[in-house]
């Protein structure tokens, strides 16, 4: 199905594809650079010109997961030889592993990562879930002042987080939600909910109401019709919305920085701290970044079809 085009246009078309490839390379270069840094020996991370060929190693990932400390003098040979291979890698880097008793101390990364997972997953489920219900409500039922309510919902997204952060901080302090998972989850839900309602409303409007009405006529209640018919149909929209909400919650930095300390702190404020204290350790921080990018990238990649289609649906019709 192609329009007959002039040779000039065909050339242009080919040029455009070349342009896409170049743009992709340019856009991906920093990410490639970060990813390759995650496998570099520390001293090659910041060379100019950048080191392209090197023997990849996983030391950065080992370092990411254990608590280390700078040594002032080289380790003695006996200790070195007695150490397992991964610990030797750390000795090679001029650091030693911290231990409590005999046990290796893990770094905070696994905890923070887990916190991120808990907070992002739960807040996404809640934001998308509530958003879906509310969008359905707005889409199917009449309500006085509906337009105003919808604008109100959208406008909550406009608030700069810092604006809300101060009273939020005070409120949380008052009720003891500071530095808790629940506190962060609530915050991210509040932040994403308006967006979710807004997007899902677009999708719900697109689903013919005849489907549910058919189910009503067939002897089902509206709730059953909603769960059996509407929800599966809204899957694309839910997926697209979830991707956006997840990306936002997963990467949120400012609130996580201000409202959590240790118990509930997520990874974004943590990763930059891996830079080290004596010498910059870009490899470890790159390793942390790569691992942290993986879940969201996989999530997006799996749902990419929905995402691309989803954006079309939701955004065009408001």
């Amino acid at each position, binding site marked *: 199905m192609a329009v007959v085009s002039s040779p000039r246009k065909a050339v242009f078309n080919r040029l455009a594809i070349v342009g896409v490839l170049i743009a992709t390379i340019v856009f991906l270069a920093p990410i490639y650079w970060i990813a390759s840094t995650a496998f570099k020996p520390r*001293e090659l991370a*910041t060379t100019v010109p950048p080191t392209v060929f090197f023997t990849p190693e996983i030391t950065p990932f080992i370092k990411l997961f254990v*608590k*280390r*400390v*700078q*040594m*002032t*003098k*080289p380790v003695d040979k006996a200790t070195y030889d007695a150490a397992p291979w991964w610990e030797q890698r750390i*000795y*090679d*880097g*001029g*650091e030693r592993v*911290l231990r*409590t*008793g005999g046990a290796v*101390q893990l770094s905070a990364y696994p905890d923070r990562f*887990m*916190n991120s*997972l*808990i907070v992002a*997953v*739960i807040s996404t489920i809640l934001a998308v879930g509530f958003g879906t219900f509310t969008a359905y409500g707005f889409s199917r039922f009449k309500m006085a002042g509906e337009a105003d309510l919808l604008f109100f919902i959208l406008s909550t997204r406009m608030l700069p987080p810092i604006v809300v952060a101060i009273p939020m*901080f005070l409120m949380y*302090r008052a009720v003891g939600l*500071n*530095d*808790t*998972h*629940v506190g962060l989850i609530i915050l991210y839900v509040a932040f994403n909910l308006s967006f979710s309602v807004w997007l899902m409303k677009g999708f719900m409007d697109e689903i013919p109401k005849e489907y549910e009405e058919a189910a009503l006529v067939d002897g089902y209640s509206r709730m059953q019709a909603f769960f059996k018919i509407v929800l599966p149909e809204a899957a694309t929209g839910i997926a697209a919305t979830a991707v956006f909400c997840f990306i936002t919650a997963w990467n949120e930095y400012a609130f996580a*920085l*201000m409202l959590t*300390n*240790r*118990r509930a702190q997520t990874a974004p*404020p943590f990763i*930059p*701290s891996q*830079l*080290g*204290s*004596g*010498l*910059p350790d870009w490899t470890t921080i790159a390793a942390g970044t790569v691992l942290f990018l993986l879940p969201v990238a996989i999530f997006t990649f799996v749902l990419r079809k929905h995402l691309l289609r989803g954006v079309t649906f939701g955004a065009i019709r408001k």
Partner: protein
Amino acid sequence: MKRKTLVALMAGAAFALGSWAAKAEDLTIFWAEWDPANYLQELVNQYAEESGDTITVQTTPWADFQTKTFAEFNAKGDAYDMVVGDSQWLGAGATQGHYVDLTDFFNKHKLNDVMAPATVKYYAEYPGGSGKYWAIPLEGDAIGWAYRKDWFEDPKEKEAFKAKYGRDLAVPQTYAELRDIAEFFYRPDEKKYGVAIYTDNSYDAMAMGVESAIFSYGGDLGDYATYKVDGIVNSKESVAGLEMYKELYKFTPPGWGKTFFIEDNQAVTENLAAMSMNFFAFFPPLVNKATNPNADVTGFFANPAGPDGKRFAALGGQGISIVAYSKKQEAAMKFLEWFIKDDTQKKWAELGGYTCSQAVLKSPEFQNATPYNKAFYDTMFMVKDFWATPEYAEILDQFNQHIYPFVVGGKGTAQEALDAVAKEWTATFTKYKRYKS
């Protein structure tokens, strides 16, 4: 998402939520994210073996250490039992009730005699000379310098230097000498530069560098007792100090606009600079061959003197305080008693901590333990500190706001910058009713 995975995730979440409260028995020390905190962790692990109380050293990056700490204080949170707080916070910690008064503890253990005088003065006592103590000096620190011995000792360089400046190329004793050497080694064509200094203004990095120069030049930041600043912080000595700092910035590597300890250390390891300013706490990586290929040829010296021979260095380091909102103050007190023991202090120094114990500092073992310990020992008796008033953060920000554009941006003159600082500081102190009239 498959239902099973979802269930698994929820279960995982529930488990994680449920396990929050688990560590209630432990003590927590809050500090910034750096190696000394790790050494401290190792030290307290030994305490745990002896006493049974486990202690966790909780850390956060330097950039938000202050924010985090005060957010927790202001929330009257009990997340931390002890805080290794910056010396400048002492005022806020003491007057706003965040710190437990340790005067009795101090006097009982005669810590005035045990700890180095400067550390007691700046880390523990507030207000100055009041005899009230809020912290136990824990980590001594100050500004010092690393330099490239191989560059300095290269005969060709020595000859060229002598030809140009009419004296020998040697470790600088004054800022003027330091400046000349920096200029001498500043060779952008060879990707070699003169000096690496602090320029990050997000916290106190740049202020520490600048005040070192100002103090050595005979200037000061004000009268800490009367809060008088005009005519002091913008005195001609202070202005000269600031100008010198600005002069040094000319010989830094390119793009040296947001630098702190990491960059300054990197300047040494990556052959960028002949001399590099840093806190002593960050020198360990420079003497380890694994982390610094130039470890063998890296030397250290104390902050140089000003034109009048005055010699000071900005104080870093911290004391440890007990948080007033902690529910485990007794256990914390018990730990501090253990911590001030000579043995502990020795151990602390061995692990890599900068003890403030005079006995340990004076011991030859300590002074010879590393190439920079001697310089550290020298420095610790000529340190001066920034303001420690409760409104410290505000005046630090004001200081940065004017110093930074002058040094890095080349805006205005040193006099203008410091005049503006004096004006704003006066206004701020007035606002907080610091002046008795």
